[in-house]
């Protein structure tokens, strides 16, 4: 039986100067790189595949399988291969990659080197959102230290393998977390999603074979290489292997990062976090960020792995557990998320560009208590026209909070209409509100 919490990625976050190379090396950092360089690249790939690691960026695609989609090198037409790390972390509620890269950027850098070796890439990029200055500093310094120590550059550790790594700061656009939009952005363009196929594995960055993985996915690789595929596969659940960082925020006593095997429940996590804020009860929560359908009290025992959450009607996403207690108006929460999607819609396709605008119109009306009960059907109808008809998953995600909140809290929407306004007092939800008895 694995322990309830299993710090792997977070294990060194409390260490003195954890972000520096000496501190990282003192915990055995860059040992995994030697192990990997002593193996054939294909064997490293196989190891990651066997570990059962699934993408930590939201969709949960098996990482080793994704790497295997790269076409074999074509001697007639040799094209460089690229590894691109998605460190754009902007999905509302998601707050794991940023602390990881601030505390231990070398974990990611080592992961990049091993993963690039496994897929035979000669260049890699870390695309980090721009709005996190100190994380950008730490990443750049880590890359510089890694070059100085010979972990990057030419003939790494005498293996004959060469790798260049560039840290690239974005400029504020949620859509750039979508992998093909990220590639356009990294090519110096507006960040708009690309039509697929061709998939990035075939024609990604500069139309060359490219692997894009989330920062936590890549940061998980050194531990797998060091401890073995079985070690990782032995944690978590059958189809959702390993450990992951669960991010609790909102109305719990001790919000923060809890690294645990996949399959833990929110009941356990809330318990570890000291419970819900004094004098209140859990009302609704997101299992994997704002783009994943809301859950309620009745979902406290859902196993937080890809299968468990999907079976209960939502998605594990990024394990961004935003916890809202009974002081919070769900209509206000949903309106704010919807304004976010409207603002972040890249404008490429009509269902999302126009649809998110309309959703905000209707929700604003309802929140002010000015609409009619038919507006709820109108909202659902609009969601129907966006879901599955949008060019990328941003549009789909925009509908999640709306449809799920109407499913669970229809009466609360109606109460706004009956009262001619919001029945909640926003002051009672703040971090500094007095506890109610």
């Amino acid at each position, binding site marked *: 039986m694995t322990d309830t*919490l299993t710090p792997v990625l977070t294990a060194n976050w409390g260490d003195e100067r954890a972000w520096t190379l000496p501190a990282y090396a003192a915990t055995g950092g860059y040992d995994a790189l030697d192990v990997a360089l002593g193996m054939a690249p294909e064997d490293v790939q196989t190891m990651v595949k066997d570990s059962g690691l699934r993408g930590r960026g939201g969709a949960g695609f098996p990482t080793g399988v994704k790497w295997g989609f790269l076409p074999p090198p074509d001697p007639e037409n040799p094209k460089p291969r690229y590894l691109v790390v998605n460190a754009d972390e902007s999905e509302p509620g998601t*707050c794991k990659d940023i602390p990881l890269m601030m505390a231990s950027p070398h974990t990611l850098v080592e992961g990049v080197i091993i993963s690039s070796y496994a897929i035979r890439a000669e260049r890699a990029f870390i695309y980090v959102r721009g709005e996190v200055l100190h994380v950008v500093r730490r990443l750049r310094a880590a890359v510089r230290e890694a070059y100085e120590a010979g972990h990057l550059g030419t003939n790494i550790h005498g293996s004959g393998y060469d790798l260049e790594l560039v840290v690239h700061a974005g400029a504020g656009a949620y859509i750039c977390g979508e992998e093909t939009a990220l590639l356009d952005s990294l090519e110096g363009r507006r960040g708009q999603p690309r039509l697929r196929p061709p998939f990035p594995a075939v024609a990604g960055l500069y139309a060359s074979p490219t692997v894009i993985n989330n920062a936590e996915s890549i940061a998980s690789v050194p531990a797998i290489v060091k401890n073995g595929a079985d070690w990782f596969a032995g944690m978590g659940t059958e189809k959702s292997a390993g450990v992951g960082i669960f991010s609790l925020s909102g109305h719990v006593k001790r919000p923060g990062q809890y690294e645990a095997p996949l399959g833990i429940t929110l009941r356990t996590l809330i318990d570890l976090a000291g419970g819900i804020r004094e004098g209140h009860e859990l009302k609704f929560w997101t299992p994997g960020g704002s783009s994943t359908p809301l859950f309620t009290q009745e979902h406290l025992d859902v196993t937080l792995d890809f299968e468990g959450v999907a079976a209960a009607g939502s998605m594990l996403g990024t394990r961004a557990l935003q916890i809202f207690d009974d002081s919070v108006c769900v209509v206000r929460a949903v309106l704010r998320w919807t304004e976010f999607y409207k603002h972040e819609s890249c404008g490429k396709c009509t269902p999302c560009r126009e649809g998110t605008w309309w959703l905000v119109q209707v929700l604003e009306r309802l929140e002010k208590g000015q609409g009619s009960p038919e507006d709820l059907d109108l909202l659902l109808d609009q969601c129907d026209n966006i879901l599955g008809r949008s060019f990328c998953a941003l549009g789909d995600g925009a509908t999640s909070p709306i449809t799920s909140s109407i499913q669970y809290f229809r009466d609360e929407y109606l109460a706004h209409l009956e009262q001619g306004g919001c029945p909640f007092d926003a002051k009672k939800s703040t971090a500094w509100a007095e506890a109610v008895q």
Partner: protein
Amino acid sequence: MSLAPETFDELREIAARYPQARSGLLPMLHLVQSVEGRVTPEGIQACADVLGLTPAEVSGVATFYTMYKRHPVGTHHVGVCTNTLCAVMGGDEIFACLREKLEVGNDETTADGSITLEHIECNAACDYAPVVMVNWEFFDNQTPESASQLVDDLREGREVVASRGARITSWREAERVLAGFEDGLVDEGPAAGSASRVGLELARERGWAAPGDAHGSSDLPEELPEAVEVADTRRAESETIAEEASDD
């Protein structure tokens, strides 16, 4: 006024980091902002010249991203997260308080040019809600009072240190770091804040760990050499499995 030759050199230096120069455009625009205080027509022209693009092409990119500003930004950029989680935890109140105090609207700059106030989207720090960013440095667990004090300190030029980050310089200096030039402040601030470590500390307290981690107490080898041995056998086993799999 055209940009200084040194700026052109740095723009070229950024472009040279990439296999294809155009990839440098986003960091180049960050550099333009650090030099010019915003994205100016001259800055756009300079990027276009360096990359062989038209100013319209550069402009089309610049307008897509919210961090690029057409209007002059103040000495400091203060961003209040008003995405749902922070808003509910008090971000809305903080934003309203600062707007009133500074007498500005969203994305506007105070009359004395000291502060630009903006409400921002989730900044990946929800476990520290409500969050305020100054020049994209984290100020965690804010209240209307603390945020109000923060902007007072900034305007008075007192030293201000981020909760998880360095001492505050200026928005322009921050933009230079985003363009890829180190400022020597990387070693300031902690590795992680308390919320980032909460799970780790609880695990240590209770003797929980991932198998094979020397920090754990349960079902683990007592001594490190043994742990290494276990890890090695596991590796060997997984390699065997890998071989078997590829034999099929």
